């Protein structure tokens, strides 16, 4: 019994060695991870420093594909664009992110809204930071959007062929202000309550559609059926107004504004990319208008 070797023993050792060798070989392949199937399936293209790869890196990436592969060398200069459009969009993303987190802790109800804010400020980890960042981002976005418009005007970038994109931009400016305004009421404190009261009292004075506006009474408008009533869901700023502000703020306007943003960015590309700095035109080179 003792001299008979188990027949499987050497085979087993050999196969172990074979496995070890194979594992080593495969581990070696991991030193160049860009050649693995997983890597290739995720990134699709090579990421070396050839011009082709650099272009494909932008064009074949869903998050970057709104960029062209190449741009004019002067267009990256900060002093031309001030970066305000891109910064506005980035702040919008920050606002969506912080806003979504705030929604976990907030009930749009007159009973608990204010208490939710207190809870957020005192008990939720980083709750205060979250709320602060959402509010200051909102303020900063209004500033950057207005500066973006200022820059676009100063560089005459609304001129042909970008006229319509300016219009989309104006609509986005309005929605930026409305987003900020609808959010103002949500903490349900004195500041928001009176700001929204002052703001919506204006609606009362809408010509023909407001109960206090010119020709409003003639159109049959009362405080209970006019445009202000439609905004507030009532004749005073109360629980319905809070709910309406919440839905406009968190669902309605973000969807509409995002849609217009998609159009805005798409049109930037379709209208020939960023407007400049383009070569200057001289007054002597103005062409006569063709008679239509």
């Amino acid at each position, binding site marked *: 019994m003792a001299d008979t070797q188990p027949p499987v023993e050497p085979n087993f050792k050999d196969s172990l060695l074979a496995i070890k060798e194979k594992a080593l070989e495969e581990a070696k392949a991991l030193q160049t991870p860009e050649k693995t199937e997983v890597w290739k399936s995720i990134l699709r293209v090579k990421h070396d420093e050839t*011009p082709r790869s650099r*272009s494909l890196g*932008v064009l074949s990436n869903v998050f970057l594909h709104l*960029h062209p592969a190449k*741009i004019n*060398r*002067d267009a*990256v200069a*900060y002093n031309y664009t*001030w970066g305000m459009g*891109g*910064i506005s969009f980035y*702040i919008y993303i920050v606002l969506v992110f912080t806003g979504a987190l705030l929604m976990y802790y907030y009930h749009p109800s007159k009973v608990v809204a*204010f208490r939710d804010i207190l809870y957020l400020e005192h008990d939720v980890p980083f709750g205060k*930071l979250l709320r*602060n960042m959402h509010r*200051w*981002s909102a303020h*900063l976005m209004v*500033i950057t959007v*207005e*500066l973006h*418009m*200022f*820059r676009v*005007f*100063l*560089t*005459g*970038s*609304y*001129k*042909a062929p970008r*006229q319509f994109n*300016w219009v989309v931009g104006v609509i986005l400016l*309005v929605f930026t*202000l409305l987003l*900020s*305004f609808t959010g103002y009421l949500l903490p*349900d*404190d*004195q*500041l928001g*309550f009176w700001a929204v009261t002052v*703001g919506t*009292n*204006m609606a*009362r004075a*809408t*010509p023909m559609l407001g109960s206090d*506006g*010119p*020709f409003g009474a003639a159109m049959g408008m009362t405080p209970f059926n006019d445009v202000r009533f439609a905004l507030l869901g009532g004749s005073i700023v109360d629980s319905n107004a809070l709910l309406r502000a919440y839905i406009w703020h968190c669902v309605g306007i973000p969807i509409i504004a995002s849609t217009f943003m998609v159009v805005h960015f798409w049109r930037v590309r379709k209208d020939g990319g960023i*407007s*400049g700095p*383009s*070569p*200057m035109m*001289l*007054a002597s080179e103005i062409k006569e208008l063709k008679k239509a």
Partner: protein
Amino acid sequence: MDFNQLWKILASPDNIPITLLLFIVPFYTWYGFRQAFANDKLIDQLEANPEMAKTHHRKTQPWRPEWTRDVHVWPYLLRIEFLAALIVTIILFVWSILLNAPLEEPANPTLTMNPSKAPWYFLGLQEMLVYFDPWMAGVVLPSLIIFGLVVIPYIDVNPLGNGYYTYKQRKFALWTFIFGFLILWISMIIIGTMIRGPGWMWFWPGQTWDHNRVVFEVNRDFHEIFGIRNAWTAFIFGGGVMTVYLAASAWGVHKLITLTEFSRKMYKRMSLLQYVVMQIFLITMLLLPVKIALRLLLRIKYMWVTPWFNV
């Protein structure tokens, strides 16, 4: 001088954006116009020297023949975007750690805040309430601001200055926008935030907000100066005043539009529709400074009183 009051207004967390605006807006105005003047200088050179105009690359940015015209977005643009996002994130974190978002007492409809102010970006509109009735200041004028901005590309017939900073080639357009944006929008926001106190009264920076302050202002309507008492006479008189005002400002705007040789050339390119739309918006825009002057200098409240609305 009440420095405590001044500090309270400047450093109140919700007013920080306006304190920021006080620095940011002048900075970017300077930043843009600096480039505009640099470009204008090059435009002058090119206009004086047609040979140079043929060969020059017509930008103030440096250029060498051996440079490629385009650069790759990756990395030359994306690294800037990444850096910008990083800097904005840092600014927001520092800002949010240092300053707390305001939270007042719970909403109480029976206790009016004094002053009760709209969010800062609407304070320009709230300030207009001093000079116009709510239907004008709160509804008609804001809508006209939006529509006025929308029509800009369609009424600006000047083909010059497309995609570069310039002052010389777009004087009229720039003055109009600077007037509308810096004077009528930004500075009204600053007045609404920093100057207006309890009762929406005018408090100079450093003046204590006195909640018991009483100001004796006897505001009159324009027709009352002429001793008109009858409502219908006042209506007809006010209508006449408005007509005269509209005609005068239309004439003034026309003079402005056709001030220089270049602007007369642009005027000839305008269609009738473009001209009329431009006139309507400019006249309406002028109404605001006119009413501010009437109110603050002459204590006149309305130019035109009718049974249905007042202007």
